[in-house]
């Protein structure tokens, strides 16, 4: 009984912390697309995110399982970013006025 409860507690804590552990931190964009965002600083708070993209604050956000999304205002327009971790990198789908593309961010060591 003791073992079952302990392992339940450990797995509950681990799953709760899982996404935060892999996403939290500083990230840098791969590639050199002129209009693409370059720097991402992100922190998971339970079911939402906080942080900045190129210095602009994340506004609305959410977390669901291994997926997350957030909005950033860039050049006066709302941009939606849908993200997930793939191969240790953040893959972000960017959607804004006349901009629809996939971006990859690698962790800044």
């Amino acid at each position, binding site marked *: 009984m003791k073992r079952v409860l302990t392992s339940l*507690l450990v797995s509950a804590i681990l*799953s709760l912390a899982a996404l935060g552990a892999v996403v939290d931190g500083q990230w840098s964009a791969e590639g050199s697309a002129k209009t693409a965002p370059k720097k991402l600083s992100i922190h998971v708070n339970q079911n939402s995110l906080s942080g900045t993209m190129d210095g602009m604050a994340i506004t609305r956000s*959410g977390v669901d399982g291994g997926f997350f999304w957030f909005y950033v205002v860039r050049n006066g327009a709302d941009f939606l970013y849908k993200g*997930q971790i793939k191969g240790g990198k953040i893959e972000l*789908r960017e959607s804004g006025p006349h901009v629809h593309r996939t971006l990859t961010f690698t962790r800044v060591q």
Partner: protein
Amino acid sequence: MRFQAVITTALVVVVAVAIPGQANAQNPPAGAIFDLATAHPAAFSASAYTQFTTSFVASATSEYVSFAFREVPAYFSFDDASVTQQGSSTNLLQDPGFESDTAANVGTNFPVGWGRWIQPVDTTAIGVVASGNTGDCASSGPHTGSYFWCDGSVQGYDGLYQQFNGLTVGATYTITFWLTDNSGDPMSNPQIDMLVYAGPALPTGTQTIGTPPAPILVTTPVPGTVWLMLLGIGALGLYLLFRRWNAPRIGG
């Protein structure tokens, strides 16, 4: 005993913290007749559409058929749907391939001829009319024609629907549609899934947005044998008319 109490309390605390974390995990409405995560659990190739088929038996003369989407990390492309009564090839849907849409309503949530519903949560990235190889569904484009439906609803499921009046109770109706997904991830309920609903009411817990289109009045298809009988009667009538005209006239 004390250890168990401590661990149990800790578990309760963790669960209490975790539950708000799951607040965004919006489950689909109950009662789907088709669940993509079951029918096609594997990832899609974004540029290759797959056709899916399901069916329902009408339990009332008036029913709704809905196609529902939720795609947290990416987007579904949906096109060329059909609803047909078994034994008929007539597609009962209005604008099943979105080709009545125009450049003016690309990017809007209101496709011509379709009604829309949402689950009343955040409506980030709910479906829009899409065109060609542009926008969030650029990697697929339409299945055929110029226009299609691009849906990446993040928090709740959103649905496209049409209402049919004049269905035959007890008759079987077949639903088909073409679909692809550009996440590269396997389907998973509730985060990446697409469902179909059919019933006398819209799925429970949903609310319509915009002005719903008028219900489609379904006329019962005339079976082939009835057409043959009508054709035979017409031919017999013509023959009798012909004989009467050509009959020799007495005293003429």
